[in-house]
């Protein structure tokens, strides 16, 4: 009995100890668990803070990224090899960079676009495009452009990165030099209707080379030098021809004037037009053009494009006056000391001329598959429709050389009496002869383009210009009788013959 009691007591004691130790253990575990929980909570809190921080940073980065998406960058490089076949070409083959352009476009707000397009051609950095474009946000029809941008014409606005032949037509290069002009433009293009109207106002002197009497270009920066602004407009409409293709038609007009810079103005045939003593007299630059583009889906894309332009294109002249006083001589005549001077006033002037011109071009383009394109273009440019070819070099304006001498005799009233016998001579040089600026050309251009992908294009082009023969082989017309040669090739062409000026172009274009 006692033994049993002892056993029971021992078991009870052990149980109590076990319960107590378990309780203590559980309590310890609870404390540890709590500690772990606290640590975990702390870690979660820290992580939450970190996530919040990351979220904040992402939100800021997204904001910055959203700003960056408002900037668009594009551009292209055209690197080419040219082989000239002209008799006087030296060097006759060159590698050159034709275009190195990057276009920056920034749209800070819906409908407001800033565009900058510099051309980084080595040695000739120029700013090609620099304009602000305000698009109407409500009707999505109107847009206002201000700055320097392409003149509204089909071939001008058609980027050389897309053009199927190496260069623009001769008539376009002549009447729209440098393609761009400074001014403002209103564009009306209702959404969903293939109709567009462009109305522009320009300074009118962009890209023109206007020489002074010394042969220096007075228009290198294209700053306007008259108060007259030129108006230009273009209207286009595209007819869809079902699933077959489309026909685009349009017309454009240019109404402008430019300061003559000369005392005399000539007609297109070099006859006298009018005389004015105001060199600020304005001469006309007026023309109209009609265009059409036919796209026809025949075993791939086929396009026929053309434009005809005619009108009057004024070219400013120049006037320069110089005054030279010859050294004084003296002599005793009749007990009077006589001092003699000769003042020579020379007016050197080239009259301005308003030439009637016409020109056109026709393209035939065929795409073969996704990678190949062949193109042929015929273009015609007659810069002076009022002058027959055989009159070029013959027709001229010559106001003659006028010499006038006026004698004056004055007394200075000194003792001994001194008289000044001053003489003045006026010389006027005023002439202009027809020449290279009047020669008409027909040009055939053939080209093949291989599109390696959307970014890389390889083009091989061959241009065959054919000049009309001029009437006389004479100085100023472009002739070889000047008899000078550099590196064994004659310095100038002989336009009294049809001359070879063919050019082979191999061009690699990278666009992004």
């Amino acid at each position, binding site marked *: 009995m006692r033994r049993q009691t002892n056993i029971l007591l021992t078991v009870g004691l052990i149980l109590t100890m076990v319960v107590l130790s378990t309780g203590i253990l559980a309590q310890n575990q609870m404390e540890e668990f709590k500690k772990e929980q606290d640590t975990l909570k702390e870690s979660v809190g820290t992580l939450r803070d970190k996530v919040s921080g990351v979220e904040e940073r992402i939100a800021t980065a997204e904001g910055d990224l*959203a700003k960056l998406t408002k900037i668009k960058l594009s551009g292209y490089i055209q690197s080419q090899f040219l082989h000239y076949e002209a008799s006087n070409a030296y060097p006759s083959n060159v590698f050159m960079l034709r275009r190195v352009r990057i276009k920056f476009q920034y749209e800070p707000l819906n409908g407001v676009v800033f565009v900058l397009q510099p051309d980084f051609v080595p040695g000739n950095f120029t700013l090609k495009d620099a304009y602000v474009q305000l698009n109407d*946000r409500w009707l999505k029809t109107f847009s206002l452009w201000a700055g320097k941008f392409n003149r509204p014409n089909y071939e001008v606005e058609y980027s050389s990165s897309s053009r199927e032949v190496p260069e623009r037509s001769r008539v376009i290069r002549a009447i729209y030099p440098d393609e761009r002009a400074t001014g403002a433009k209103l564009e009306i293009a209702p959404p969903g209707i293939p109709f567009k109207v462009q109305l522009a106002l320009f300074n009118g002197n962009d890209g023109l080379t206007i020489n002074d009497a010394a042969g220096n270009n007075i228009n290198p920066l294209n700053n306007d030098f008259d108060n007259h602004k030129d108006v230009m407009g273009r209207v286009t409409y595209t007819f869809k021809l079902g699933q077959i*293709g489309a026909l685009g038609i349009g017309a454009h007009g240019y109404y402008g004037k430019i300061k003559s810079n000369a005392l005399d103005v000539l007609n297109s045939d070099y006859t006298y037009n009018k005389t004015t003593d105001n060199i600020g007299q304005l001469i006309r630059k007026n023309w109209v053009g009609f265009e059409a583009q036919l796209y026809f889906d025949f075993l791939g*894309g086929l396009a026929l494009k053309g434009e005809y332009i005619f009108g009057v294109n004024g070219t400013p002249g120049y006037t320069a006056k110089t005054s030279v006083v010859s050294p004084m001589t003296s002599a005793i005549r009749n007990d009077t000391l006589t001092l003699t001077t000769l003042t020579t006033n020379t007016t050197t002037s080239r009259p301005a001329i308003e030439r009637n011109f016409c020109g056109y071009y026709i393209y035939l383009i065929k*795409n073969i598959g*996704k990678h190949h394109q062949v193109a042929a273009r015929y273009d015609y440019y007659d810069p002076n429709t009022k002058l027959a070819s055989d009159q070029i070099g013959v027709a001229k304006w010559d106001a003659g050389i006028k010499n006038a001498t006026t004698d004056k005799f004055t007394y200075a009233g000194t003792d001994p009496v001194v008289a000044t016998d001053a003489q003045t001579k006026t010389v006027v040089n005023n002439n202009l002869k027809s020449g290279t600026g009047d020669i008409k050309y027909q040009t055939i251009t053939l080209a093949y383009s291989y599109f390696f992908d*959307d970014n890389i294009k390889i083009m091989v082009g061959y241009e065959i210009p054919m000049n009309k023969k001029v009437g006389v082989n004479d100085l100023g017309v472009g002739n070889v009788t000047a008899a000078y040669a550099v590196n064994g090739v004659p310095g100038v062409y002989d336009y009294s013959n049809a001359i070879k000026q063919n050019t082979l172009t191999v061009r690699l274009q990278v666009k992004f």
Partner: protein
Amino acid sequence: MKKLKTKSGMAAMLMIALLSFAFMPAPKKITVKGSDTMVILAQKWAEVYMKSHQETVIQVTGGGSGTGISALINGATDICNSSRPMKQSEMDKLKDRYASLGIEIPCAKDGVTIFLNEANPVKELTIKQLSNIFSGKTRNWKEVGGPDQDIKLYGRENSSGTYVFFKDNVVKADYAASCQTLPGTAAVVNAVSKDKYGIGYGGAAYAAGVKHCAVKKDDKSPAFVANAETIKKGQYPITRFLYMYLCNRPTGELKAYIDWILSAEGQKLVTEIGYFPVK
């Protein structure tokens, strides 16, 4: 000698095998790229067509209508799917590159649906209200008859045709900066289904798990939910065509595939997916 014969025989067999491999007709591959809205439909068309035309391989990818049109211009795809018409500027690029204005083929109709969370008490909105909501002028649900809670906007990326279509036809202004852009209508639906105060837009075919909001042309007009009947009758105010674009008129296998899409069989799949046939 025997060995030589065996070797010659093996070489001849190898040659024949190689030649037969070389002259085996190559599988006709058609690439389709563009609208995310249309990607399920395009995949379905491709899947069904390939079952009956095993020699044809059709590869379908999304990326958005803008991406698809760029791919068409780049020559990276045969067919571009687009949930919006091609812009004049894009058509000009196509014209410059291929001397062609491209071929536009409307292949289905869609109603751009407004998605609301099922717990949202708002049932209908006018076009004007939607414009104000997505342009950020209206920021609280109570302004349009809902609870006093901020509106959470979900939309598409700017490469999406739905983004452009909705912006041009409904918002008519810039989207609010707070509008969260998501890659695909499915992502928009998913986000709205999880956000009680969210609102999003997208193609009708993706609307599972959310509520369709009825849309009114203006205050005086009746409200309509996008469905086959309201879209067919022109009652639902935000309807559009879904297009396929090609560079040139299709020929060969491409023509056969497009003809099949426009056939009764192809158009039946349009309805199955949740869009509406063109005919």
